[in-house]
């Protein structure tokens, strides 16, 4: 849940003042501020919170004998997150010689987990020496690992390939062979930044498009088109171009309004079925910010009401779609309402169900 993309710059400069933590920063930077590091670091915070609670519980005077562990949660957590907490707490309790049992007649040690705007508050409640004993610890939610969303059943093959706390404006496949990966446009702290990301999701290059000299916007928009090693970026009223080879040489120019009826932005994304070569159009509204959205893949030439539409629910509004070199697949950008992160999914049209 730590906003690694978003706070990457903040963490680096912040901790320059504290060399002791610089090592952690370096580790994060080496990981490209990517979610693998986030998860590991989040696990540490989670473990520390569990340890603190277990230590406090173990210090309760007169707490003896077997205890039945009961878990209550009030956060909107997935089963995976909840299970992770339970296992970690059990583990830490047992390390401190608290004898946990499944025996229903044993006195309970109840652990309650509540999400507040900034924290997860863990409360342990039990009885010892005829009195209620309560121990409470809190941990910053932003330090915890991202939740694993219970994925709804889908009929499109899809997988998440990148996530970032920074707003993702557009993404495209970067090429084949050694160059394979993604080119991504982010809106980070009111500037547009182009990323080159490898197949494992590690950030290989980071090119701020300062030359575009854009005004801050509440509705930032940009599209990129990779052509070999050269990236073209379309912005409102401007176009920029650069190559990964010479990232410092970003050239931007003001664009005249599109002539005739040439659209300024990309049109609907169309996939081609690998089974019969038929075309399928991606439909999404991307309208309101607070709803999970169902992507509809409908036979090209029909409306969203088609009976043969393939549906796939995403964990938030769909912000953009972009076709890939493989005509059967596309990239979908969404904002996960649970974590607040922006996510890129690769969807592929598969034969049958």
């Amino acid at each position: 849940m730590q906003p690694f993309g978003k706070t990457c710059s903040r963490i680096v400069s912040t901790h320059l003042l504290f060399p002791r933590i610089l090592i952690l920063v370096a580790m994060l930077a080496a990981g490209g501020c990517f979610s693998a590091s986030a998860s590991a670091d989040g696990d540490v915070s989670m473990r520390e919170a569990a340890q603190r609670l277990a230590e406090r519980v173990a210090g309760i005077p007169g707490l003896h004998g077997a205890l039945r562990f009961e878990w209550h949660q009030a956060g909107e957590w997935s089963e995976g997150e909840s299970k992770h907490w339970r296992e970690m707490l059990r583990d830490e309790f047992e390390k401190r010689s608290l004898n946990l049992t499944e025996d229903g007649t044993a006195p309970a040690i109840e652990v309650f987990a509540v999400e507040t705007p900034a924290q997860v508050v863990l409360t342990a409640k039990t009885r010892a020496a005829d009195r209620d004993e309560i121990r409470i610890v809190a941990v910053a939610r932003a330090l915890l690992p991202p939740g694993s969303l219970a994925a709804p059943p889908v009929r499109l093959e899809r997988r998440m390939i990148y996530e970032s706390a920074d707003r993702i404006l557009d993404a495209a496949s970067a090429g084949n062979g050694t160059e394979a990966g993604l080119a991504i446009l982010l809106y980070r702290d009111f500037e547009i930044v182009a990323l080159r990301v490898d197949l494992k999701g590690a950030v290989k290059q980071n090119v701020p498009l300062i030359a575009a000299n854009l005004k801050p916007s509440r509705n930032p928009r940009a599209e990129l088109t990779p052509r070999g090693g050269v990236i073209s970026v379309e912005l409102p009223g401007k176009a920029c171009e650069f190559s990964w080879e010479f990232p410092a040489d970003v050239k931007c120019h003001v664009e005249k309004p599109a002539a005739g009826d040439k659209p300024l932005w990309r049109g609907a994304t169309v996939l081609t079925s690998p089974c019969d070569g038929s075309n399928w159009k991606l439909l999404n509204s991307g309208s309101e910010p607070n709803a999970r959205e169902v992507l509809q893949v409908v036979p090209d030439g029909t409306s969203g009401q088609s009976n043969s539409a393939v549906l796939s629910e995403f964990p938030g509004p769909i912000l953009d779609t972009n076709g890939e070199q493989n005509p059967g697949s596309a990239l979908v950008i969404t904002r996960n309402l649970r974590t607040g992160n922006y996510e890129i999914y690769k969807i592929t049209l598969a034969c049958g169900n």
Partner: protein
Amino acid sequence: MRFTKSRWLAATSATMAALACFGAPAATPRYGGTLHVKLRASSVSLDPREWTPGSLSTAAGEKLASLVYDRLVTLDDHARFQPALATEWSHDAAGRSWQFKLRPGVRFSDGTPLTPSDAVVSLQISLGKGFEVTAAENGVVIRSSRPAPDLLEQLASGRNFIIRWRPDGTLLGTGPFLVTESVAAAPSEANPAAIRPAKIKFQANDGAWSGRPFVDFVEVVLGEPALRQFLDLQVGRADIVEIAPDLVRKGRQEGLRIWNSAPQTLVALRFENALAALASDQLREALWLALDRDTMASVLLQKEAQPADSLLPQWLSGYAFLFESPMNLQRSRELRAAFPGGVQGANQPLRLRVDAPGDLFKLMGERVAVNARQANLLVQVALPAGGNNSPAPAIGLHLFAWHYDSLSPHAELEAFVKQMLDGTELPGNTTDPEQLFAQERRLLEERRILPLVLLPEYVGVRSNVHNWNASPWGDWRLADVWLDSEDPMTTQAPAGPPKNSSTARNPGARP
């Protein structure tokens, strides 16, 4: 112990999901138009120095102030602190010394640059004693007399705005809007018997560092009664209104878009400080046991409120479910029977004054009196001061509403105690949740404050308003909303962001 899967969070989510289904999909945000907002508060101040902690008018003032001023940081809906006027921050291991780097290039609405000294002046006022704020190169340093691990929560909420106070009395901000017009309430020219409500008009700040808001103007009318607001929303004379709890059900039945926050307002009883020593422990305990909070929430407030057992709500403290306030009339009567003579509430009535505005709170006061009577306690709701010269009997009990302002449970409880319990200060470092719980338990066990119900904020949002994405703690985020073009109430405007306006405007906000 009430530990339910956050009913209010669930309700909010459901409402939000429902909201998303309203209106036709329209992917491209539109710039332009005027957003019409109506509020119940009859007057508001945009100057945080004039705000009374916890008051409902302060809550309205804070809501409007966030249009004009920015804070150093914000908290997003996913528990992440986001840079606002500060781009970086760091602190020492104890959380006593914090350093913030200010965002470069930010300008106030009059075009002058934001400086570290602006932040120093603002934060020294808003954070108050216990904090020392000094300017540093490109930023500020905040030192606390005790560990302040919750400083970011504090800075992201409450009155911690960065403001420049000009000698002429106007206030400048760096926010997405600026005040262009402020009209006080006055007798109507057409009908002098009627009062023309106060109005504040905000204009989009084209140079806002955070990006120009979508709407051109936000027009706020103050002092609008609940029912009129409701009707105005129905007939399209308002885009955003406050919905009174007793109108929520009707609104839902009629298909209005109604959003609710997490519980924002505590309604509670407070024994008069001067009289608290006189009131016996048994009286306070007996009244506490006689109160039927469930009925207040479910009948009087039509299930649009939550019985309150604690001072801080669950969404803020995380431990409120540990408190219980079981109604026990039998025990209450036993305590009453054992009263010594001469105690108020036994032989002479305990006078209750309703300090919160509105009929709903008066009804709650009367309900308290009914509950007391069931336990043979005498509680009398005091009428407003009359014209006769006889001295009014002393007030023994107050019914008040407290609006939560801070995202720090420690800061909130501290402000509450200071305001409601005669300047009392919380001892020790209560940022530790276990210690904070112990402090709150001690306060509740004294029974000087008796929580009644928790009220969320209900907002009616017209279907032409898009991107309504208020935070669960009541930040409306009006700079992000946009309006349909097919709206007779709004001015037609092009779809793109307008060029810098040359319209003459007052860049300051006069409180």
